[in-house]
């Protein structure tokens, strides 16, 4: 394949928009995903994206702004899961399973009955370069900037709460507030990423870069940075692959990050063994 062929898609505005969104979304999900993975909440991303699909359909039917409606729906779902866990003897994994899947089912039923609001359902489910508009680019830029601001100013509180909630609370960190803040950031991230990744694959964009970064470093700040870079590269490479292979963008982006995982798994293992050998030799 020649350079001109590789660069050809960049002539199209829709593709440039897609590349912007995929790269920024990859970095964003990479960073937010670190908190998700380290809190053992990998499935909340999966659940929230499904739930937001339901919110999308409902918002379309009621006739309110799709993003706003779906976003509020996502936050309400996250709070509902928390509420059920507190009031009934049900684990959070089971509560996520009930609430978010029911919301997803509602979305599917509404789309079948009344058609998809705005975009076709396939694009929402699996992600589509063609679905990306300039408004989507601005949305993801806005969410990314807000997330950077939250991550910057609340870095230590987020880290303390994630690592050691009880001690953080005991020493004066408002952990419930920090948890809620993280859920809002997560909902916004999922919402802004849905067009490119699709509902079914967002969990992977949140989880895979963070897991790869974790295998490569023992430092939290380095993990955040690495995960963001791996997410961004996966988004960029995956979006290009999507165009050239004529496959939906969600799967190609996830497969790219899965390649990172395989390389890190094999390479990281031998690195650790070498480090251990060196340490023993000293």
């Amino acid at each position: 394949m020649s350079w001109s062929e590789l660069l050809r898609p960049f002539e199209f505005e829709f593709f440039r928009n897609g590349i912007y969104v995929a790269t920024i979304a990859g970095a964003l999900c990479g960073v937010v995903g670190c908190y998700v993975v380290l809190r053992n909440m990998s499935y909340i991303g999966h659940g929230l994206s499904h739930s937001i699909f339901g919110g999308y359909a409902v918002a379309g039917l009621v006739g309110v702004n799709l993003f706003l409606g779906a976003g509020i729906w996502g936050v309400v779902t996250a709070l509902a899961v928390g509420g059920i866990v507190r009031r009934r003897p049900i684990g959070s994994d089971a509560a996520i399973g009930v609430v978010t899947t029911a919301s997803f089912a509602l979305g599917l039923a509404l789309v079948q009955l009344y058609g998809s609001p705005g975009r076709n359902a396939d694009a929402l489910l699996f992600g589509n370069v063609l679905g990306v508009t300039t408004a989507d680019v601005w949305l993801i830029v806005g969410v990314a900037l807000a997330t950077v601001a939250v991550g910057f100013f609340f870095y230590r509180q987020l880290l303390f709460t994630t690592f050691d909630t009880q001690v953080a609370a005991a020493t004066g960190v408002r952990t419930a507030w920090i948890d809620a803040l993280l859920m809002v950031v997560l909902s916004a991230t999922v919402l802004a990423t849905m067009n490119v990744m699709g509902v079914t694959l967002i969990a992977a964009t949140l989880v895979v870069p963070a897991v790869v970064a974790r295998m490569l470093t023992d430092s939290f700040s380095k993990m955040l940075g690495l995960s963001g870079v791996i997410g961004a590269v996966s988004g960029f490479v995956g979006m290009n692959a999507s165009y050239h292979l004529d496959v939906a963008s969600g799967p190609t982006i996830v497969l790219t990050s899965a390649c990172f995982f395989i390389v890190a798994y094999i390479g990281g293992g031998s690195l650790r063994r070498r480090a251990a050998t060196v340490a023993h030799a000293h």
Partner: protein
Amino acid sequence: MTPREGVAASAAGGLIVVDDLTVNYGGGPPVLIDVDLTIEPGDLVGIVGPSGSGKSTLLKAMLGTVAPVSGSVRRAPGLAVGLVPQVETIDWNFPVTVAECVGMARARGLRMPWMTRTERTEIADVLDRLGMHGLGNRHIRELSGGQQQRVFLARALFTNAQVIFLDEPTSGLDVRTRHDVLHLLDELNSDGLTIVLTTHDLNGIAAHLPTVVCLNRSVIGAGRPDQVLVPDVLERTYGSPMEVLEHGGMRVVVDAPLGSNVTPLRRTGTTGGGASA
């Protein structure tokens, strides 16, 4: 260590005053009943008692993370507290280096994510003080048992806490390491730090502390170890007969059948000078 008067007998107006405190969880049976306890500046207090006696709950109440059903916990205005958690509760695979772990403690308010130069110097100083020079870039899993305990002690010290709480600081540690931790706590206490800890270890820890509080939902006894580590108080605390032996000049608490080469102390009816029930 300087033996101190029983904390419960001290006058009101200490750093932390627990007054007639009753606590339960979600309307269930009370975990603590009418507990009175005063922590004075410079105290080094060990809380002992059986599992489920409310030791951890009492710590939480003093830290303010558990609300009283009745009674009160008054802390001196602006009092800074630190908590060293049980090592069993730590996720040792969490990606934090020693320096990151210590640094996260200054988290309140809006702060820069990175450590300032002053903070980096302070972290290095506190690690030096705890005998962990040059270990700042190690991952927390790569430390020995005693060092792992010290990281969290360093984190508590880095917050400039005036009172440090330790929940079972020596569980899972070997004898030598336990000894080191005890010495370190004694040193910090001599430097003026107020320390409150819970422990299951009557002989290895509690017997060496200036002040011991025996807890079983209520305070059964409080005072110097020779005042409260006596059969009567221990039996009421643990709910089963325990003997206190004198062996080579040391008092040793046992619940096993007695050997022939040791002399049991007679059971006494008193609970010690500063004790309150």
